[in-house]
């Protein structure tokens, strides 16, 4: 059946209205998110210090796994540009067995370091620096040496924002 000009025009208008409604819904959902104040997390300035693993050779025969274990570190900035807090709960990387959130606390001339098991909360609008002698990610049991210039993958897990995959660059120590 052939449509007349009126019907064709009507369909075109209906389609335009449909697109406008869909676009409006997308925009509204964005607005709603902002109104609810969703967190907007950025992981920036990610770097690690160089570290050399022990070669598995005859030279080290008799060494225990703890004596062979070499660790690394990751530093970065966590920026929350959103409207509500979020929490860094875990980090992982293929270069190590386990990655843990740690914090160094200096008390006079005493250095104490402890794992932060509850994660780190980033308030809205805040920037938290993971830096030497403060918060850091400890890479336990490196599978390979971290050589200057090398870039490796890290996966950050946030309570609300979910997973963020980024890369760390190894700096000359």
């Amino acid at each position: 059946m052939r449509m007349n000009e009126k019907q064709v025009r009507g369909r075109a208008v209906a389609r335009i209205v449909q697109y406008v409604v869909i676009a409006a819904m997308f925009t509204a959902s964005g607005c709603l998110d902002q109104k609810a104040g969703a967190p907007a997390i950025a992981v920036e300035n990610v770097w690690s210090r160089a570290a050399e693993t022990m070669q598995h050779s005859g030279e080290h025969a008799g060494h225990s796994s703890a004596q062979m274990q070499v660790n690394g570190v990751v530093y970065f900035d966590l920026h929350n540009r959103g409207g509500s807090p979020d929490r860094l709960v875990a980090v992982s990387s293929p270069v190590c067995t386990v990655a843990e959130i740690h914090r160094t606390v200096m008390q006079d001339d005493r250095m104490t370091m402890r794992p932060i098991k509850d994660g780190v909360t980033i308030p809205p609008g805040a920037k938290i620096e993971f830096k030497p002698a403060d918060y850091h990610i400890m890479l336990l049991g490196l599978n390979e040496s971290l050589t200057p210039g090398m870039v490796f993958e890290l996966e950050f897990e946030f309570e609300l924002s979910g997973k963020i995959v980024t890369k760390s660059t190894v700096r000359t120590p």
Partner: protein
Amino acid sequence: MKRKMIRSVFMLFMLALFACQTDDAFRGTELEGLPTTDFTLTDQHGQPFTLSEQKGKVVLIFFGFSFCPDVCPLTLSKWKQIEKQLGEQNSEVEFVYITVDPERDTQEKLKTHLAVFSDSFIGLTGTPDDLKTAYAGYGIYREVVKVSEGAAGYLVNHTSRIFVFDRAGNWRLGISNDSSVEDMVHDIRLLLKG
């Protein structure tokens, strides 16, 4: 007019004098009259190291452990920069790292770890008794904190101050490890001057 000029010259003189005095003062904490405890430990190449045999050189000592990812390597990074800034004077300075984790810091481990920073750094370990002498002599706080199961699951909280000895072998300074590289180089140069 003449009086004004005299006053200005006098003030400039006083300012210059003040600047000189400040530059000749140590930026670390001066320790007068504290006894130096001698010790002999073994370096990462298996050679004995005795503190009293280092006379003629300025010696920096830091107590740390290779398992530590943060403050200990940060100190070694600073030492590396100090080494670079000292240039030729570097041959008159010894950088000594004594482990607070002898269970895991074998000679080979210290060798691998320190080589990342500098081949000239000395890494020391030893028997529990010999290490105890060094720890006790310098009032080293050392606390093993279990963080998870297994031999790898502990950290060692420890004193982070850097101990500095002059050419005569006297324990002269305590420098906070968060001091700037410039301040540390300044103090080392003052000690080298004599």
